[in-house]
């Protein structure tokens, strides 16, 4: 449900750029880390609700989920952590350092050419 807050932040950011470009936004790409726990459907639903009646109405949102990474303390490999079964794919070691999760980022916006 925190997607509501995120959708509002996203709409604010897109609206600011839309005013700057003075064009209709068609789509936006977002990226996020695993621990942001973003549910795409919830985010799109909330965004559409907030965007109603604005130039952002009916925009297409694409969310890229970046896997959280770990660094193996045994063999030093940096790898994508599978949350359900976290272990090093090379040495099967379970002792690893969890690296910082990717932040929630508005990557790019696609605008309609007038």
């Amino acid at each position: 449900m925190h997607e509501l807050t995120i959708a509002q932040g996203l709409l604010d950011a897109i609206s600011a750029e839309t005013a700057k470009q003075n064009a209709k936004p068609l789509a936006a790409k977002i990226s996020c880390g695993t621990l942001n726990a973003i549910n795409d459907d919830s985010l799109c639903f909330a965004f559409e609700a907030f965007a109603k009646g604005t130039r952002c109405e009916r925009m297409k949102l694409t969310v890229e989920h970046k896997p959280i990474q770990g660094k193996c303390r045994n063999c030093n490999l940096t790898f994508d952590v599978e949350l359900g079964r976290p272990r090093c794919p090379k040495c099967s070691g379970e002792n690893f350092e969890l690296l910082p999760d990717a932040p929630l980022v508005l990557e790019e916006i696609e605008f309609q050419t007038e």
Partner: protein
Amino acid sequence: MYKVKISQKILATNEEYALKNRRLLDEKKKLCLNMISSPGSGKTTILKRTISELKNKIRIGVIEGDIQTDLDAEKIRATGAPAVQINTNGACHLSAAQVSSAIEDLPISNLDLIFIENVGNLVCPSAFELGETAKIVVLSVAEGDDKPAKYPAIFAKSKVLLINKIDLLKTAGQVDFDIERAKADARKLNKGIEIFPISAKTGEGMDNWYEWLTRSVKNLRL
């Protein structure tokens, strides 16, 4: 059609407030702990007991987050500690801006430790930094030992896990909760997490938690 590269953090406003809170707390050398759990895990009861039993050692203030009512702030004030209630009116988490204004309402010069009791929810609050020193996750045994595996984010981000209501495990068959399983699952993603099984009702295990708190407050003063 054309594309514009933005590369902007969506929660930038929240992060600005979180940074502001962190700077203030660092400058004043105050420990600030963000408590996160499901509703009903016993956060308020843990706080009440902690405040009462550490009364002569650590000066504690509380920021209470709830969707509605100031019941929890009243319970805290009954112990003699200052408490500020935030009502989110439906929102599932506290924001750094809300905490920023609540800090202003606390007499922080007279405090060593500020607890933030977040809205009861094991998912959403973990995504919003408040400027806290550390996150404390509370899991009560009645919720089941599979929660660290099912809700990994909050267990990965927390410094301490309090496993509460262990008094319920004393009567055989009342609650099935494998403490070792919960500990092992929490440590899979967070090797350094400190885990204290406690009962805020009977006081069992609370000494280990108090020892950690006392040490953390002392370390901050150095």
